[in-house]
């Protein structure tokens, strides 16, 4: 039998401590399973996600980056998630010019109770990046 090696994308997840990380914890708590491709980095707030982190992740071999924030109105620091959205929206326009597909850098919202949503988002992310294939930089 001939082995076919499936492409396993490397995904970096930047999760806010107060909502999304708790949401990921919830996914574990309910014994849910989701693709193992995501490496989670916990931050105090999604507003801490500097676009530099995203570019550095790509530079160091990530095929996709997902930023998960609190829902609007729920941010522990009032508007950190709004800043994350503003940065992500501007960065997305730049990434398009730089030839990086928008599916490779996503922002979404997961509350502490949304373990199911967390599972779904990660599964979607892994699937869409798997279709795109590995990110080839010209470094």
């Amino acid at each position: 039998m001939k082995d076919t090696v499936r492409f396993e994308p490397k995904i970096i997840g930047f999760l806010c401590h107060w909502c999304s990380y708790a949401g990921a914890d919830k996914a574990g708590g309910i014994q849910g399973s989701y693709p193992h491709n995501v490496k989670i980095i916990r931050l105090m707030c999604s507003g801490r996600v500097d676009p530099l982190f995203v570019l550095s992740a790509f530079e160091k071999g990530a095929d996709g980056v997902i930023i998960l924030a609190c829902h609007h109105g729920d941010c522990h620091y009032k508007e950190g998630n709004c800043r994350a959205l503003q940065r992500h929206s501007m960065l997305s326009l730049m990434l398009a010019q730089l030839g990086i597909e928008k599916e490779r850098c996503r922002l979404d919202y997961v509350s502490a109770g949304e373990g199911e949503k967390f599972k779904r988002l990660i599964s979607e992310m892994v699937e869409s990046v798997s279709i795109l294939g590995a990110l080839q930089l010209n470094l």
Partner: protein
Amino acid sequence: MKQKPKLAVYWAASCGGCEIAVVNLHEKLLDVDAAMDFMFCPCLMDTKKKDIESLPDRAIAITLFNGALRTEENIEMAHLMRKKSQLLVAFGSCAKGGCIPALANFTKNNELLHSIYIDNHSVDNPAGIIPSGTTAFPEGDMQLTPLLERVKHLAQEVEVDYYIPGCPPEPHQIWNVIETFLAGELPSKGSTIGCGTLTVCDDCDRTKEEKRITAFRRNYEFYPEPEVCLLEQGLLCMGIATRNGCGAPCTKANMPCTGCYGAPEGVGDQGAKMVAALGSVMDIGDTAGLSEEVISERVNAFLTTIPDYSGLFYKYTLASSILGGRVGR
């Protein structure tokens, strides 16, 4: 008589502005001439490549190398100047970060040549000729140096001892560097010199208050207030993500900083830092009770004013940015 240390200024893919900056030393040029043997500068004097080749290795004390590396000839000259110089300085934003020539890294070479020679309103080229390769002339064959696939900055090809930023570097800073060199007080190798370590805002004397921008505006739309921070007036002034040392001449002339001194000390990617900074000063109004889709649409509507964020934020540093240009070209 003790021999004066040799000074060379070479240009690769550049516009000549760095040479103008050297000439703008004005009467200080006489002091440079008194202290150094200014012996090579294709823009200003008639020394030839073969004269440089005939020098012993490391014969030139300091070479100010400006321009990005666009062609194979540029690469050849970069290696030659490295070999013949004790100190090789990436002089100006092209040699330091790629600058305007490196904006070509947003596209492929064939697309670039097509835009220049074929799909161009000011060019009449019915035969569709794109200059390349070898052409026969009665005097002999002429060969055009091939373009590199990707524009590089100097340090991507040879070892660089110092970096002097600016498009072009400010003359007073060039003089500072020459004085420091003559005094034997240059800092450790690899340093960026002839500049500060903070941001242009530090040099800019406009009044700065809390920044909440309700709309991005562009230069042609209005006359900015002369005393108030340009960013607070909605112009995308790059001062917040740009190294100081220039003395902020642009903001003094009521024009926003476009970022020519590159990222401040310790900042890796100027474009990413601009996004980080602007993302926290945009004011999209009260969003209480609005759905995620509506908020997202509001942010996107805010952003449509500016057509080219990458070109704006990486105008001087694309070659040295993290991604270096368009990926998978």
